[in-house]
């Protein structure tokens, strides 16, 4: 709440600005006006004093004044002059009229003063230098001789009085009371303030109305429109009707409207894309499940066969992949084991995987007892037909005689299988491989025989295992695989595969994997332990 209270809206700011501006303007107008008026009115009153002084100078006897400055004694003429001067003072606005001689000790000795008698002495309150200059040089003072004294706030008009020989014998003063000047000034300032305030307020109101109509209201409209848009994300169409002015604000409104429309369109198209993407993703998930369901996943797979055990898993990396494993009985005495990996990823690889897996199984069962190498040769030619996208599949295929433990295997570009002899350790069985299936037409594949003794284990896998990568792009590799296999080598295939899986997860530490990981473990027990399980 505290934050909100301190917030100043644009309206408040503008209004405050205008009010402050008005007050400052009014104040400065009054100050400057009164300053100028003060000067003018002082001059006017002072000059009026000089008019009076000039009249007096014309009508008094200067030689008599010169005489009084020596004798300091009143005579008949003196009283005549007093009457005259009193009459003049009464007729004019003058506060005081007096004639005196300034002296160097900054006092003045009056020849005549309306408030005292001849010969009275008084200190000089006005600037002495100017008076002294007027007295000694016979010039009129430059300033208005404004001063505060015991007689009040006064301005003096001062003229030198010369005798018939032209010598300055005294100074004539006509004082005007500044109070009169100031009361005039005050009236003036009052009138000035009232009139200027009225005009300024009028100006402000007009200014405010214009500002509000042409600037603030359109801005607030745009703001409200944007607020509404931010809340509801829908286009409010009447913004352009509200902001009609032909200026930048109109441009702003046009841009805002265009932007909102674009955003709404963009959001709509994203929604469409997202829903389509979800649809595709759902379909891909279905495809991935169909694909996974093709692989035998029920274990034990052959509960009534005790001469062997087989276990396999496939962990897809993402969406549909190209890995597959398979095992099936060719006849009552032969089992076929298949591990395959189609190059590439996604839908093309998964389609190719389905065909490959089906062709291998079909050819093995129905091909008329072909050896693994022959089976791959047949499958290869089938897959090469119309394989324009040059997909290929690495396959390890073995057919094992369950009575003797003798098997034949063909390795078309697949990973090295690992084998564990009874009571031994897992190790890779390394030999030269044939090229992958579907690489080229009319290829011949090599095959070799091997013999499993009761208790021997086979482990086959795809490159998703050895090429699992950690965050530094390091490969899991076959050494780690062998180590994981030999962790608990005597355990069941299920447990061993699980050990490998955990070992890979420990290695990758959650780094996203780009390849499926597929593993198959096979144990041969032989015919002689039949029924012991």
């Amino acid at each position: 709440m505290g934050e909100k209270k301190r917030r100043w809206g644009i309206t408040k700011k503008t209004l405050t600005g205008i009010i402050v501006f008005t007050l400052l303007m009014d104040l400065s107008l009054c100050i400057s006006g009164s300053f100028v008026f003060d000067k003018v009115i002082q001059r006017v009153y002072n000059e009026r004093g000089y008019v009076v002084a000039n009249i007096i100078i014309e009508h008094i006897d200067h030689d008599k004044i010169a005489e009084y400055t020596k004798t300091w004694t009143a005579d008949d003429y003196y009283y005549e002059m007093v009457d005259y001067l009193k009459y003049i003072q009464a007729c004019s606005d003058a506060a005081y009229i007096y004639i005196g001689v300034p002296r160097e000790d900054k006092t003045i000795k009056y020849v005549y003063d309306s408030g005292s008698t001849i010969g009275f002495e008084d200190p000089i309150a006005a600037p002495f230098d100017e008076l002294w200059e007027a007295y000694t040089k016979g010039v009129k003072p430059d300033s208005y001789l404004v001063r505060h004294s015991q007689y009040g706030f006064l301005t003096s008009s001062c003229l030198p009085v010369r005798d018939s020989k032209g010598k300055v014998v005294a100074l004539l003063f006509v004082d005007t009371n500044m109070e009169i000047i100031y009361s005039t000034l005050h009236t003036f300032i009052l009138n000035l303030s009232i009139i200027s305030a009225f005009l300024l307020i009028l100006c402000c109101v007009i200014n405010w109305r214009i500002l509000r109509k042409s600037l603030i209201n359109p801005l607030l409209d745009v703001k409200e429109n944007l607020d509404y848009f931010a809340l509801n994300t829908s286009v409010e169409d009447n913004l352009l009707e509200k902001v009609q002015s032909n200026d930048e604000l109109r441009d702003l409104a046009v841009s805002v409207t265009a932007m909102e429309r674009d955003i709404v369109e963009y959001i709509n198209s994203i929604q469409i894309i997202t829903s389509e993407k979800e649809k595709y993703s759902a379909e891909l998930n279905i495809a991935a499940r169909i694909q996974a369901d093709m692989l035998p996943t029920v274990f034990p797979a052959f509960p009534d066969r005790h001469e062997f055990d087989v276990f396999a898993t496939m962990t897809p990396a993402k969406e549909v992949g190209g890995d597959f494993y398979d095992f099936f009985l060719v006849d009552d005495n032969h089992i076929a084991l298949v591990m395959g990996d189609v190059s590439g990823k996604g839908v093309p690889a998964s389609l190719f995987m389905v065909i490959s897996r089906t062709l291998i199984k079909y050819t093995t069962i129905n091909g008329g007892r072909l050896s693994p190498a022959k089976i791959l040769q047949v499958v290869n030619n089938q897959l090469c037909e119309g394989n324009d996208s040059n997909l290929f599949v690495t396959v390890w295929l073995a057919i094992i005689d369950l009575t003797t433990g003798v098997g034949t295997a063909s390795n078309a570009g697949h990973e090295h299988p690992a084998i564990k002899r009874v009571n031994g350790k897992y190790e890779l069985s390394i030999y030269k491989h044939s090229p992958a299936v579907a690489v080229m037409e009319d290829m011949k594949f090599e095959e070799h025989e091997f013999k499993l003794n009761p208790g021997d284990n086979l482990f086959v896998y795809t490159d998703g295992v050895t090429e699992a990568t950690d965050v530094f792009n390091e490969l899991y590799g076959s050494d780690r695989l062998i180590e994981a296999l030999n962790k608990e080598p005597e355990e069941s295939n299920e447990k061993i595969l699980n050990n490998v899986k955990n070992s890979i997860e420990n290695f990758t530490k959650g780094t996203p994997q780009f390849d499926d990981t597929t593993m198959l473990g096979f144990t041969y027990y032989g015919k002689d332990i039949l029924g012991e399980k």
Partner: protein
Amino acid sequence: MLNINILKDAGKAVLALEGRLDTSTAPQLEDAINRDIAEITDLSFDFKNLEYISSAGLRVLLSTQKVMNKQGKMIIKNVSEEVMEIFDVTGFSDILTIE
């Protein structure tokens, strides 16, 4: 990450690869090759700085090899031990010309 440096001179081209050729980078190489494979009769790859090749990368090499079989020759040079092992395991060392 895969960097492809292409040197071309008339019908001859050398592509030096640097980094990893896997599912995410194979399309990049495929595009680069498809752009001007039509006029090339002598194509060679320099794998000196190639760290890893996945089956998706092998597929690009295979399709390129098939095209080049018809219009000229293709050789791969400076194959590292790791990549050579992949070629051997997958049987590609029999199909590709590796020097």
